[in-house]
């Protein structure tokens, strides 16, 4: 008991509560940017802007990983999230014909219930976390805890079997994505059940519907409900 109390007392002495270090200030500033970008991501009405603000959020998180001395995770974050996941999301937005401008129905009707749930859970989580880790400090001095050497050694000494299982999972996901896409194509080659499926299965070429001029007089004779549904 007493050694931990002594350790806590010395920790509280060396790390004052109200005197943040430089790393903490940088972490706080980057964290504010990250959190603000996340808020814009979930609240903006322009779908493409949401994906671009997601890039800011994920990049900010990569900087936070660097500040926590986890270099390898930071660069994996930049490579996989910013490099591929956001690009995939942008392709998905393009292929589902997301409108370029504002879309008035980006939020559903239950946004106030969602806001209530989110604020309640945020208050609960922040209170619990601050109460639990009030006197805990991360020691960032010394050798980096998350250098590529340390991460690789632990990954290939202790985590080899989950790592290999994960590669099988990635392969399964790849095959699954291909099967899902192929099945849709095979169904569209068969005679469509209704005209909606026929319209929807046409290749998503850049058509004139996204332009405000072409939207008023749509030459294909599609009803405006179809355009609304495409959002």
């Amino acid at each position, binding site marked *: 008991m007493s050694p931990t109390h002594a350790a806590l007392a010395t920790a509280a002495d060396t790390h004052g509560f109200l005197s943040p270090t430089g790393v903490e200030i940088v972490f706080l500033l980057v*964290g504010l940017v990250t959190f603000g970008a996340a808020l814009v991501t979930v609240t903006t009405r322009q779908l493409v802007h949401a994906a671009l603000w997601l890039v800011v*959020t994920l990049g900010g*998180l990569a900087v936070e990983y660097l500040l926590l001395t986890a270099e390898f995770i930071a660069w994996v974050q930049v490579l996989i999230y910013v490099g591929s996941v956001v690009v995939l999301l942008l392709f*998905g937005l393009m292929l589902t014909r997301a409108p370029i401008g504002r879309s008035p*129905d980006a939020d559903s009707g239950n946004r106030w219930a969602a806001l209530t749930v989110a604020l309640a859970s945020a208050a609960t989580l922040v209170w619990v976390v601050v109460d639990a880790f009030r006197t805990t*400090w*991360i020691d960032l001095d010394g050798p980096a805890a998350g250098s590529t050497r340390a991460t690789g050694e632990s990954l290939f000494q202790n985590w080899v079997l989950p790592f290999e299982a994960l590669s099988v*999972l990635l392969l399964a996901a790849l095959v699954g994505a291909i099967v899902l896409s192929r099945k849709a194509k095979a169904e569209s080659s068969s005679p469509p059940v209704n005209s909606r499926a026929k319209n929807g299965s046409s290749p998503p070429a850049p058509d004139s519907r996204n332009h405000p001029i072409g939207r008023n007089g749509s030459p294909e004779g599609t009803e405006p409900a179809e355009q609304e*549904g495409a*959002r």
Partner: protein
Amino acid sequence: MHLAYPAVLSALLFCTGLYGVLARRNAILVLMSVELMLNAVNLNLVAFDVWLSKAAEETLHSGQALTLFTITIAAAEIGIGLAIVLAVHRNRGTADIDKLRDTAEGHESDGPDRDASTAAQAEKAEATA
């Protein structure tokens, strides 16, 4: 560094993602919010791993290994999720999760409900035009 900084940031990001999942209507925006929640968990894992590797001299680095696994699973999830969303968009012409009510209880037939909703949206489009 105080451990509360990354923990609080992670909690706030998680709740932002929670709001996005609950409030968004486009399926791809819901996927983006799920990515936010996964990233919040990753930040927690990394912070606690760095703390424990120094405080408890834990050399397993389980937090970082699990972060890598989470990133991989998130990549697989976004691939499968986008494939499903694109298949739904091809078949239905919409990526709006409020209109995909095939498995909802209390809707025996999908057709009239969808026609009614599209008619309401057509009226809305005419009103805004």
